[in-house]
């Protein structure tokens, strides 16, 4: 009785089901990945390396790293704070807040980009001309601070930006759109985890005399660290890979406001297929590294993806 197989299907049926699943996997996951690498190296190593060394590509890589470098730490902080708030406390409007956190998942990336054009475009609610007027005193202050020795590096650019506050079609817009799109990743990963953990341990810590930050660093953080890392990885993958919203606010200035995914599209449209796929391999490589790190995280903890949609 104990050795009875768990499935009762006959061998051909099992073969068919497993074969079907494997074929599906190969067709939809492995084939595209192989195609990206095969196309990238079609014209050899030299073309591949040249495509990544080109000025426009380097600037795209830099811009992508900046966008991710700003949005991932910001959203990590936000995600932890939000998850802490909605799981350790009960208050009016809590479920509304949880729904709001999900908003960037729910809206189409095109809309997520267009809202910033509507807000900060030349004919938006806060056009650059109006902002330049509002920032004028601050711009003067920054300009004069930049005159002092040793402060120039900090204030020269700030003064220039305050005098002409470009948001969309410039770096700030790209960063803002990326932050918006990757907003929920960390929070969504932590909320179910912290929900199941409950607040018993924190309550125990309070009764033993611990206080706010102490509780967070000694009790909460160790409990959520793997979930947090997992959320950060997903957030980073999306921040570097985002296309739609960033495309709307970018303005596509070559060598200035094209991120890596946008640069791939530009190259493809210019018939530089090998170069396009060379840059695509960078993104694919990033995805693979992310997956590898994710598996490592799971391996360490036995952590299964916690109810992620």
């Amino acid at each position, binding site marked *: 009785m104990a050795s009875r197989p768990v499935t009762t299907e006959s061998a051909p049926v099992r073969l068919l089901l497993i074969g079907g699943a494997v074929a599906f996997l190969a067709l939809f996951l492995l084939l595209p990945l192989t195609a990206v690498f095969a196309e990238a190296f079609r014209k050899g190593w030299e073309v591949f390396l040249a495509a990544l060394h080109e000025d426009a590509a380097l600037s795209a890589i830099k811009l992508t790293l900046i966008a991710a470098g700003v949005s991932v730490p910001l959203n990590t902080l936000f995600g932890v704070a939000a998850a802490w708030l909605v799981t350790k406390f009960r208050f009016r409007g809590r479920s509304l807040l949880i729904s709001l956190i999900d908003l960037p998942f729910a809206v189409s990336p095109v809309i997520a980009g267009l809202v910033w*054009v509507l807000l900060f475009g030349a004919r938006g609610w806060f*056009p650059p001309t109006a902002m330049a007027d509002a920032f004028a005193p601050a711009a003067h202050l920054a*300009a*004069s601070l930049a005159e002092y020795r040793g402060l120039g590096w900090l204030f020269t650019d700030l003064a220039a930006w305050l005098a*002409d506050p*470009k948001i969309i079609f410039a770096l700030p817009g790209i960063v803002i759109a990326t932050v918006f799109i990757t907003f929920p990743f960390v929070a969504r990963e932590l909320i179910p985890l912290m929900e199941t953990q409950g607040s018993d341990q924190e309550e125990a810590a309070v009764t033993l005399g611990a206080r706010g930050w102490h509780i967070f660093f000694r009790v909460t953080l160790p409990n959520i660290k793997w979930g947090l890392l997992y959320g950060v990885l997903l957030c980073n993958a999306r921040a570097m890979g985002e296309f739609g919203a960033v495309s709307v606010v970018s*303005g*596509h*200035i070559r060598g200035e406001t094209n991120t890596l995914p946008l640069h791939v599209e530009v190259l493809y*449209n210019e018939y530089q297929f090998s170069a396009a796929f060379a840059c695509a391999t960078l993104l694919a490589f990033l995805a693979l590294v992310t997956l590898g790190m994710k598996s490592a995280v799971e391996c360490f903890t036995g952590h299964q993806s916690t109810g992620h949609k």
Partner: protein
Amino acid sequence: MKNILIIPLLATTLCTLSGCGKSVPSTEAKHPISLLNVSYDPTREFYVEVNAAFQSLWKSKTNQSLEIKQSHGGSGKQARSVIDGLQADVVTLALAGDIDSLAKEAKLVPADWQAKLPNNSAPYTSTIVFVVRKGNPKAIKDWADLTHDGIQVITPNPKTSGGARWNYLAAWAWANKEFGGDETKVLDYMTRLFKNVPVLDTGARAATTTFAQRGIGDIFLSWENEAYLIEKEFPGKTEIIYPSISILAEPPVAVVEKNTAKHGTSEVAKAYLEFLYTDEAQELAGKHFYRARNPKIAAKYHDKLPEIPLVTIDNEFGGWAKAQKTHFDDGGTFDKVYGTH
């Protein structure tokens, strides 16, 4: 204590301000400046070379380094971005209507922008040609052949693509001549033509990819320069057919005066666009399969870019504003033609 701090601060502020005001014109020759050229899809390779040539010219003339940045996309979309605040110093778009909208919607260019430069502000022209599969297996020779059964025609959507509007008007011009101006017959021809269009892509590049990369369709209505680019990128796969009549496409250029005034680049932007009319730039236009305005240089490229009868938008359609309204706005002829299937 506070006052002690504030006074030098104010003083420096004032110094900086007045200093800034004075220093701009005098040091302009030394400070590097940059220009942003917002253009449409197929001009990228052309402007890369133009920019390099103009940069060295400007450097030798004024001893000022100049950086020229480029942005490319669908012509209508690019105009939209400039209206929304993309800081273009010059626009080089696919059709006058898109620059008109910069004047109308946001007053970024003066209403009479087209009179600022020679030849309707279009330093080079192009036309619409047929691209067919190698050996022309469906024997397509002229506009009449496009409505035959079993022919698939690839053209982008005239609502979104500048090139597609030229395609549409070129077909219309042929039909108008063929049927002696009988509009019912012209509309019938156009309807049958668009029955043969399996997909309407949003832009010229997307349509090129559909035809050349994905191998859909028998004939592709294309910009002439784009057609030669396809031959270069997919050698031995396609052939270019010149129809009996086509349209003179005039992709115009303009200084976005409101932006250049702000950037202090009015002079260099104007010089940049005027440079497009010089022999050096006209040669580059020919090299990239645009038709040069300079007749001597155009003649050098005649074996590649043959003279065929070309109608103009002004004579045949009464200008862009009118053509846009009659044919492409909601309720125009395109809606009648495409709505019936």
